[in-house]
C-alpha cells in the first residue's frame, strides 16, 4: 500500500467496511490496461432504506406564549394559542396541566377556593380532515380522565387522521365564563402552565 495517499487509503477502508456485509462480493481481479483483463469490475451495492414518519411541531409553530386576564373571575376569558403541526401521517396531540386549574398561593378554608377551573379545547387541522375535543383542565393532570391528557403517545391524545404539514388553523383554546361557583375565589394572582405534546399515531 506504499505510494497510496491517506485519502485513498481511508476511502478504500470505508468501501471495504461497506462492502463486507453486502450480499455481492467481487471475486475477479481487475488489471491495469495492457496488463491483463478485465480492466474494471462493476460493483453492485444494494441500498435498503425507508422514509421515517415525521411528526412534531413546525419550527415556527411550536405552542408557546402567555395570556393574562386581570379580574378573570368577573370577565371570564377565552384565548387561542395557534400552533402548526408538521406530521406526514396521522398524529396525536395531548396536553398536561401543571396545576389542574388556575392556582393561587395559600390555603383557604371551606367556602373559599384557591383554584379556578377553565376548559381546554384542541382544534387540529389536517390535509383533509380535522379533529376537535374539549376537556376541563382538572382532567389534564396526572391520572386525569381527559382523552387527550398528555404526554402524547401513539395511543394517547386527540388523533388527527390526516397528515398535517404547514396546515394553518390548528390551535389550543383556553376559556372560562365569569366565575360562578359558590366557593369564593381568594384574591391574588393565579397561574397555570399547559404542556402540549405530539406523537405519530399510525
Amino acid at each position, binding site marked *: 500500500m506504499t505510494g497510496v495517499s491517506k*485519502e*485513498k487509503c*481511508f*476511502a*478504500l477502508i*470505508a*468501501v471495504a467496511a461497506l462492502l463486507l456485509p453486502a450480499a455481492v462480493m467481487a471475486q475477479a481481479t481487475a488489471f491495469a490496461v495492457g496488463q491483463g483483463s478485465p480492466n474494471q469490475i462493476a*460493483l453492485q*451495492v444494494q*441500498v*435498503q*432504506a425507508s*422514509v*421515517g414518519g*415525521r*411528526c*412534531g*411541531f413546525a*419550527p415556527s409553530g*411550536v*405552542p*408557546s*406564549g*402567555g*395570556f*393574562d*386576564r*386581570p*379580574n*378573570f*373571575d368577573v370577565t371570564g376569558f377565552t384565548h387561542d*394559542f395557534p400552533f402548526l403541526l408538521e406530521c406526514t401521517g396521522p398524529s396525536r396531540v395531548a396536553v398536561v396541566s401543571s396545576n389542574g386549574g*388556575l392556582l*393561587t398561593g*395559600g390555603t*383557604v*378554608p*371551606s*367556602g*373559599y377556593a384557591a383554584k*379556578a377551573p*377553565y376548559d381546554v379545547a384542541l382544534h387540529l387541522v389536517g390535509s383533509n380532515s380535522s379533529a376537535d375535543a374539549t376537556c376541563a383542565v382538572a382532567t389534564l393532570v396526572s391520572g386525569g380522565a381527559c382523552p387527550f391528557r398528555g404526554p*402524547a403517545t401513539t395511543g394517547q391524545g386527540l388523533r388527527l387522521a390526516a397528515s398535517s404539514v404547514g396546515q394553518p388553523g390548528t390551535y389550543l383554546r*383556553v376559556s372560562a365564563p365569569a366565575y360562578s361557583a*359558590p*366557593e*369564593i*375565589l*381568594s*384574591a*391574588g*394572582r*393565579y*397561574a*397555570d*402552565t*399547559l404542556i*402540549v*405534546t*405530539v406523537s405519530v399515531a399510525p
Partner: protein
Amino acid sequence: MDKFTKLALAALSMTLITSPAEAQSVNGTVDITGSVAPKCLVLPGAGNSFGTLVALGELAQADGRLATDLSSRFSSIGGTGLIARVVCTSANPTVAVDALEITSATPSTTGYANRVDFAARVALSVTPSGIDTISNDSRNAATGPTALSGRLANNGDSNIMITADTFATPVATDLLVAGSYTGRIDIVIAPGL
C-alpha cells in the same frame, strides 16, 4: 480524484442519505395567568350595598319618656333587612361601624331631650366557626376598620346580623320633644389589604 476515491465517497454519501430523519420539536408550553381583585360583595347578585329603613314609630311611652322596648322593636320592624350576606376575596376583611344618634331638629329645653343614643352591634359569622361582633355606641366616635378573626363564612347562609340596644335619652327622666326623629347605622366591610 481517482476512481476508488470517487466510489468510496459515493458509498459514504448513500450512507448519509439512509440515516434516520432529524429530531423535531415535540413539545410546547403555554402559560395562562390572571388575577382576582381584593373586594367585598353582597350576595346574591354581587352588588355592594345592603341595609333597610327601620321605622320605629312612636318613640315615647305614655308618660312622655323614651319607650323601653326599642331594642326588640328595632329587630322585629327591621326584620330580614337587618340580615345580609357578604363575602370578601381577601383573607382579612375589616368592618367599620358608626352609630348616629336618633335626633329631632326641634330644640329641647329643661326636662326634655331631642336625642336618643343607642348601641349598634354587627354580628358577623366567620370561618371556620364563630361570630365576631363589631359595635359602636352613638355616644362615642365611630368604630374604625377592625379586622375579623377569619374570613367571612361562606356557606350559603346570611352571615351578618345587625341589632341595636341601650336606647337612652341623655338624662333618664327626660321627656321627648315632639317631632320627627332620624338616626342611622353605617357599616363598611372592606377587603383587608
